[in-house]
């Protein structure tokens, strides 16, 4: 089976001179649940954003479905982004609109410029969005404004928005960093089981090593912008963890 995602010698230096990534290589196969660990500022967020081109890499290649996204045109990038759902640490929902609309926003990449700009979503999309919300246990919240929801509920809406894209890959950037332990577990369970059931490949950035070990099929440790570990969760020893988290 060919890899869904291949990252080759990826480097990123921001315009202010900070080097976030200095040569990252790895492949991700279909169906994997990869957790990326590393201390704050190690380059995890930049790495995820280079995959869907929210951040333009300085050097290297990102092959998604055998297409090099770093050389893609802007319309190709949009097509690529709609195949890749993204979940954020601070949820990043549109706070002033309803939960349903937030989920429907996941369809924008499939719509023409005019209907998308005006937010004229099709009946089929609406029905599908409601189905997704039901699956995440949010059927009571459909018409509430997004900012009325609790943190855990907002993150479930975030997952629902990603799912409505019908993605091949989900990128989750610290999805549980602003949630309490119990809610965190429920979010991780949702994310894990949905990716399993729908066969979606998932890459999650996490702080917590124990959570990573619990869900990951594979763990990648990032230290100072390079891959310090890449292997099965049971191969991750105390020593390696210390190396990854040392300053």
């Amino acid at each position, binding site marked *: 089976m060919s890899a869904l995602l291949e990252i080759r010698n990826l480097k990123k230096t921001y315009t202010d001179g900070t080097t976030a990534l200095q040569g990252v290589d790895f492949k991700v196969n279909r169906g994997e649940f990869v957790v990326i660990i590393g201390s704050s500022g190690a380059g995890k967020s930049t790495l995820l954003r280079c995959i869907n081109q929210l951040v333009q890499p300085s050097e290297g290649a990102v092959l998604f479905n055998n297409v090099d996204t770093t050389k893609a045109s802007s319309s190709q990038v949009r097509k690529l982004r709609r195949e890749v759902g993204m979940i954020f640490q601070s949820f990043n929902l*549109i706070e002033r609109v309803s939960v349903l609309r937030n989920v429907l926003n996941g369809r924008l990449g499939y719509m023409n410029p005019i209907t998308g700009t005006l937010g004229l979503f099709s009946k089929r999309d609406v029905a599908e969005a409601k189905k997704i919300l039901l699956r995440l246990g949010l059927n009571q919240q459909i018409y509430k404004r997004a900012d009325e929801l609790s943190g855990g509920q907002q993150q479930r809406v975030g997952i629902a928005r990603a799912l409505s894209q019908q993605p091949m890959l989900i990128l989750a950037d610290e999805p549980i960093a602003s949630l309490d332990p119990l809610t965190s577990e429920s979010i991780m369970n949702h994310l894990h089981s949905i990716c399993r059931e729908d066969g979606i490949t998932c890459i999650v950035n996490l702080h917590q090593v124990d959570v990573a070990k619990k869900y990951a099929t594979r763990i990648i440790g990032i230290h100072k912008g390079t891959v310090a570990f890449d292997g099965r969760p049971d191969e991750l020893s105390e020593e390696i963890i210390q190396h990854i988290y040392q300053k």
Partner: protein
Amino acid sequence: MEDRLKELQRQKKLQAWLVAAAIAAFTVWSSVETGFSFSELFKGGSEIFRFIFFDFLPPDFSKVKNLIGPALDTIYISFVAMIVGAFMSMVLAFFAATTTAPSKMIQVVVRAFSSVMRNIPTLIWAILLVFAYGLGTTVGCIALIITSIGTLTRAYAEILEEIDMGQVEAIRATGASYSQVLGQAVMPQFMPGFIGWSLYKLELNIRASTIIGMVGGGGLGYAIQKGIKLFQYQEVSLAIIMVILIVLMTEWTTSKVRERII
């Protein structure tokens, strides 16, 4: 240490005295130059008192019929200027805000343009426009549109610069195009401020429209000016009462609308 502290305190005190003395000196100088004095103020005060109570009052309510037209003109001018100004400013604001501007160059040009529009007073615009369009409501309307664009572009741009970019990033990540991002991520955050500022501008327009009416911009201001020239003070006082009523009514309505929407 103690000495140093005392020294500093003394310096502070001296500075405070110097500033106070400077203000006092400037006040005296200005009042001498302009011939201002309190006795003059009281003399004028009694004159104003006489003028208001014997010439202006009572208002001549039989003239209401003549003034309804101009009063409606004032409202029309202000409202049209607000609507047209708001939509033109919204477009310009997207080019003027750092968060949404397509290029730095366009941003600077739009900002400079709106600054010129804003910093030339409405009254001056009206005087200039009277030469081009002659007396009438067109002048008032255009003058108000120009200053509306000046103020609102800046206000809207500031709202746009304060939006949460996380929400914008999330919508971009779904594969949305530039216009889709504007429609679905920027607009929902922009709307409350947009409505608030537009309503406030409507209030300002109503107030300003009476002033520009006096230089030929039509509406109640024009009626007031005409009345003063013809010594029909009791009609003028009625017009002034109507201005006050319109201003109060707009304030009341806009505050109700604002409560509803925001």
